[in-house]
């Protein structure tokens, strides 16, 4: 059912726009694709060793590389720099607002590989680029469900259509929680163990409530009622058949559901008339939070009981 996609396909020009980089040369290459999430600092290559050159990565050139480059003789400079410009290389980024050596500019235009410049230091620049790439090139999928931030817990509400997911979410939003996405949630894996959900652009801030129609959440509840994205830390499944399976009555065991490569805590809430779904979801979220903080209420309850019985036995 789940298809894994890449979050987005990105080009060098997307990176330029996002990080506000200056294009110094190789302008014709701004439509080159970026395929690797990793970065490369080609210091060792400038020293002449090309056996490990990661040519498909964005090349970051910082003060170390520039200083080293300046120590090379002209012949070495020409030869080694040209070797850096490969078919698959997306672009070069210079940090620190450096004056870029002419040989780089010449090759950029010759091979149509952009040379970009940032005014940042190398480490923060790399962090920025890496964060952006990790999100854009993350594995991604989408799921039917509603994502709400409840007391800081990203709760993905799932269940058959018509079961009342959106209505539950509406009530939660009315209580001050935040909507991320209604009915179609794009989920990407920022890193293994960390799933982030967001709304498809077209339906951001809208909800469909049966009988009423499309509701603009921002107009109705204010800008604070939505969030752009949120890490998913709990999946709540709403189910109508009361006898379909035994529900966890104590909540000791924690079921998990696997989305992409990440396991997320998962609970099933049976729906019956008279149950206040929003309150139940709030409680589930707070319980999740307590557990995250190290408090396992169900376990505590059982331990107390066992301790009581043991004492009773001892006093016999």
């Amino acid at each position: 059912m789940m298809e894994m996609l890449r979050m987005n396909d990105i080009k060098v020009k997307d990176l330029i726009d996002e990080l506000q980089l200056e294009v110094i040369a190789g302008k014709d290459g701004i439509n080159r694709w970026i395929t690797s999430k990793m970065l490369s600092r080609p210091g060792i290559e400038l020293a002449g060793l090309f056996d490990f050159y990661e040519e498909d990565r964005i090349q970051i050139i910082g003060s170390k590389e520039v200083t080293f480059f300046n120590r090379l003789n002209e012949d070495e400079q020409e030869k080694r720099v040209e070797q850096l410009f490969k078919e698959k290389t997306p672009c070069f980024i210079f940090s620190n607002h450096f004056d870029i050596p002419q040989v780089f500019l010449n090759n950029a235009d010759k091979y149509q590989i952009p040379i970009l410049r940032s005014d940042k230091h190398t480490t923060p620049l790399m962090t920025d680029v890496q964060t952006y790439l990790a999100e854009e090139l993350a594995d991604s999928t989408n799921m039917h469900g509603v994502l709400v931030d409840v007391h800081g817990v990203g709760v993905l509400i799932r269940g058959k259509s018509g079961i009342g997911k959106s209505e539950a979410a509406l009530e939660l939003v009315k209580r001050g929680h935040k909507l991320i996405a209604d009915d179609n949630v794009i989920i990407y894996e920022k890193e293994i163990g960390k799933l982030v959900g967001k709304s498809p652009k077209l339906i951001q801030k809208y909800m469909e409530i049966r009988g009423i129609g499309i509701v603009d959440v921002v107009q109705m509840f204010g800008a604070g009622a939505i969030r752009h994205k949120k890490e998913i830390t709990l999946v709540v499944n709403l189910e109508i058949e009361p006898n379909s399976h035994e529900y966890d009555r104590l909540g000791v065991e924690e079921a998990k559901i696997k989305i992409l490569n990440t396991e997320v805590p998962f609970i099933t809430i049976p729906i019956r008339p008279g149950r206040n779904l929003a309150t139940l979801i709030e409680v589930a979220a707070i319980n999740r939070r307590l557990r995250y903080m190290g408090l396992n209420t169900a376990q505590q309850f059982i331990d107390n009981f066992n301790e009581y019985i043991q004492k009773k036995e001892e006093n016999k």
Partner: protein
Amino acid sequence: MEKKFIVTDEAGLHARPATKVVNAASRYSSELTLKYKGREVNLKSIMGVMSLGIGQGSEIFINAKGEDEEEALVAIAHELRDQGICTGPDTNI
């Protein structure tokens, strides 16, 4: 079962007809999904369908799973045709 359709309407799968298709889908108990560019949404959800922004010329797949899957798929094909979203041999089932 699954069937492929090509969206021929120049406005794509736009709001009003999308609603009709979603309503038609909602009449059946089968699980119905729409797949477009690797993303799969519930065909009974208007938000799901609209969120894909399906334009003219798009290839879409409707998948039906359940007791009334055949009837459901026929009804949806007819709805797509009647709403003018898809024309051609796609909808002749």
